[in-house]
């Protein structure tokens, strides 16, 4: 089908950037927050408007400027990119609401800087989602790294400084040290960086070179948290919770996983990976991360840290699904981007709500708290079920596809990996809810009548929790997009 040329992808990227000067110069905070909302809604509308053509099978393209011979800053909206963009833009609205309440409630400083860089980060995320070639992806990937730094170090104290350093070291170090040379090599070998359905590297590089390239990309996109380059994630938890919620559960880490997906499908190609047996290599690297991170999550008492390690594991699920190189596997991986996003953001916002209401950060202190904050913990349950992959939550659909994918790829070992890690997920999530509801109260704060967090902190997680459940019953358009993407990109 003919690609549709439209400026909408560029506009979707720019709309939040355009809001930044207005944000910064706003006279009072209501105007500032109003503009944030407006930008978020506009972005979602623009992204959603791209659904009809993409669902009909067309791609939407736009080339901005050619900066090097054969390389341009260009956008291409295909099912996979649109899936990711929809998830990010819809969740930005929810997180903005949560941010407003959180920041005002805790009377945080430098809020304008916060909202401004948040907007830039979202621009970069959509930029990654809609990239038509590896260069554009790299550009927005780096912009995202830099835009999120001020957010991570928001508190500006000693801990923030160290956390920020770790964040940058891992993320910039790998992107400059691994991704950049790999990108130059790809360009040298094939003369192009445009994503194509079966990649463009086939036939230009041998097994050793190919393996090195794959490793460079998988480890180079450290935002995906593949071990051993995962340590920045727990370190970045010193950011304010709304930052953790969107960026680390949805945008930053998903950009990492998305980038790897794009490279696997659009640069290297599933066919080539299968012929070179490199899919297995990636699958085992991902499996290692899944198991180890789940084990570490079990040992964490800090709620946010437990969630962080859970995220590391879930991201590798996505990578594993893609590495299976089978249609179901790809479908599972792509749809997990959406399901995990909704589930994880619910969990993080619940953690935020708990903190705002009671100041608690550790799970051991939360025994009995469920009776005081039933809605919060019910939302937490919904999020957990989605992440574990149990009905009636949306995560079940993606995990089911992943399991079928392992069967298609004739890899019972990987199926065992998936099942056992789901079991581990249950082990570290369900007890939290169980203790909150059924154990005696831990301390005074856990006793007493129902006293939830203020509405602005309670409503967003409940909404996304409900969405997680709703996605089980109505998984479209995410599932459709995932299926379409799996077909075109998997060469099915």
């Amino acid at each position, binding site marked *: 089908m003919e690609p549709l040329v439209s400026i909408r992808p560029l506009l979707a990227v720019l709309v939040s950037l355009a809001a930044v000067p207005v944000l910064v110069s706003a006279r009072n905070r209501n105007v500032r927050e109003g503009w944030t909302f407006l930008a978020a809604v506009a972005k979602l509308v623009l992204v959603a408007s791209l659904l009809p053509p993409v669902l009909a099978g067309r791609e939407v393209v736009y080339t901005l400027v050619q900066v090097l011979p054969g390389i341009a800053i260009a956008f291409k909206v295909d099912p996979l990119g649109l899936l990711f963009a929809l998830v990010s833009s819809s969740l930005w609205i929810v997180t903005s609401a949560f941010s407003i309440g959180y920041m005002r409630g805790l009377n945080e400083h430098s809020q304008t800087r916060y909202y401004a860089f948040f907007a830039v980060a979202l621009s970069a995320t959509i930029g990654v989602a809609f990239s038509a070639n590896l260069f554009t992806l790299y550009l927005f990937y780096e912009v995202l790294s830099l835009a999120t730094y001020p957010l991570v170090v928001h508190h500006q104290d000693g801990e923030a400084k160290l956390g920020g350093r770790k964040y940058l070291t891992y993320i910039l170090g790998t992107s400059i040290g691994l991704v*950049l040379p790999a990108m130059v090599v790809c360009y040298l070998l094939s003369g192009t960086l445009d994503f194509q359905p079966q990649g463009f590297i086939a036939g230009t590089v041998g097994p050793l070179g190919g393996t090195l390239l794959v490793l460079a990309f998988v480890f180079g996109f450290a935002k995906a948290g593949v071990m051993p380059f995962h340590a920045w994630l727990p370190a970045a938890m010193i950011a304010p919770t709304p930052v953790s919620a969107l960026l680390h559960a949805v945008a930053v880490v998903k950009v990492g996983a998305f980038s790897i997906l794009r490279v696997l499908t659009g640069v290297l190609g599933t066919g080539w990976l299968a012929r070179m047996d490199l899919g297995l290599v990636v699958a085992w690297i991902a499996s290692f991360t899944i198991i180890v991170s789940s084990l570490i999550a079990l040992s964490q008492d800090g709620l946010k840290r437990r969630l962080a390690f859970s995220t590391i594991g879930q991201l590798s699920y996505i990578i594993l699904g893609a590495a299976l190189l089978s249609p179901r596997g790809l479908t599972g991986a792509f749809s997990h981007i959406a399901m995990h996003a909704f589930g994880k953001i619910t969990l993080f916002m619940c953690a935020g709500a708990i903190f705002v209401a009671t100041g608690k950060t550790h799970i051991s202190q939360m025994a009995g708290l469920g009776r005081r904050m039933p809605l919060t913990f019910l939302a937490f349950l919904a999020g957990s079920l989605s992440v574990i992959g149990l009905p009636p939550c949306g995560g079940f659909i993606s995990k089911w596809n992943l399991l079928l994918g392992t069967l298609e790829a004739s890899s019972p070992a990987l199926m065992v990996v998936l099942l056992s890690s789901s079991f581990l997920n249950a082990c570290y999530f369900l007890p939290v809810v169980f203790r909150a509801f059924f154990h005696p109260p831990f301390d005074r704060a856990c006793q007493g009548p129902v006293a939830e967090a203020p509405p602005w902190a309670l409503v967003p997680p409940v909404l996304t929790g409900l969405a997680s459940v709703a996605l089980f019953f109505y998984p479209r358009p995410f599932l459709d997009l995932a299926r379409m993407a799996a077909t075109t990109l998997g060469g099915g």
Partner: protein
Amino acid sequence: MISGQYPALLVIVPLLAACLIALAGWLKPVLCFPLAATGLLGAVWSAVGLLLRVAGEGPILYRLGGWPPPVGIAYAVDHLTVLVLVVVASVALVNLVASRATIEREQVHRRGPFYALYVLSVTGLLGIVVTGDAFNLYVLLEIAALSGYALIAMGSPRAPLASLNYLFMGTIGATFYLLGVGILYIQTGTLNMADLALRLAPLHGSPALLVAFLVIIVGLWLKMAFYPLHGWLPGAYTYAPSAASSLMAPLTTKVMIYVMIRLILSVFTPAYAFGVLKLEGLVVWLASAAIVAGAVMALAQRDLKKMLTYLIVAEVGYMVGGVWLGTKTGLTGAILHLINDAAMTLTLFLAAANLVFRTKSRRIEDLKGSFARMPWTMTGLAAAGLAVIGVPPFCGFFSKWYLLQAALEAGQYQFLAALLLSSLISAVLFFRLFEAALFEPAGGKPGHGRGRREEGMAEAPPSMVIPLLVAAASLVAMGLATRLIVQGFILPALSGGPGGLS
């Protein structure tokens, strides 16, 4: 008509302006700045005019005084020349505007001499770029150098010694160049560059030519501070007055690298330099060492300006390595980096000048709270830092892209590793600056920096901030215009000259 005389005007207008400024310095110092600005504006005008002419018509040959070469001095203006001319003239002008405040503060009694030397130095640099005669180059080399020594010596108390050191090394370098040209003259009887190329062609095997080549190259390396011949640079640029260092740091070393490229392309020809002499391996190793040494030494500095000067040493390594990879991609990368680095260094030094202007200190730890208090300056510094690290869409990324590509093509993996390592080290360098500027509010307790305005630390005046932001914006503009620059100017320049480039 005037436009036909641009190549000469380029040099004459600032030269006359310098003389008038010297005069005005005695009689009416207030006129110095306007005269300087007019002189440099004339230079920018001529440079841009030339750029447009060359872009339209191709290379131009201009005879000074109408004397045909090789009797007379000819100016050969091709695509590469105009590119560098425009960059040199614009950097000089932007810096002049930005430096007015610091000059008024530091040099108010010596405005005449200072502005005169400033404009004279720029005249020398412009002349070096535009000339087509080897001896004329020497004269202009020394004009630029001497005015530079004097400018530097007007700075802090440690400046005269640093300047004398620079004088010694610079003079040795220039004299080596002169010696080399002398050997060439003996062999060919001509000093005109185009003529030299023709007459040297049959002599490519001779030891005398080899000696001449080596002597000239080493002389230029001294002048461009190529490690390990870089000893004069940190002292000279650190202790110079802000206005002088932000003029010379972006321009002087880059113009010397231009001279090296010009001589290799147009006089010795790449066929000789890379084909007959097999020196690339050695020089690329030296360049890789320069890059790493510069980056590592920058890390060790507590003084902001000194740190930036070591960064220059690393950047020179990039460019020399790029040239000596001996391929078209390598030269493209080196030339692109030359103009990109001029812009990046200008932005860095302007930002440093702003910071020093307000905090009255050059130490990195005294940058505390700068993000809150001087947001525009820090934005400029951040943009320049990101360009140096090599983040797209800043220009630094694109020249690095070419250099990385060239290194891979030529199989010089140590150069590739050095490039990547220095990017990472630059990231550490700049984020250390940002941390210092972001985290502790100046003199207050650490914590949620509420940014209360304290005495003495406010944003620099607009005359210093606006040029900085213009320079920072150019970093993005040049990045996005990379293809235009490469295809419109660099590639035509590389394919136009006597061949031998792979």
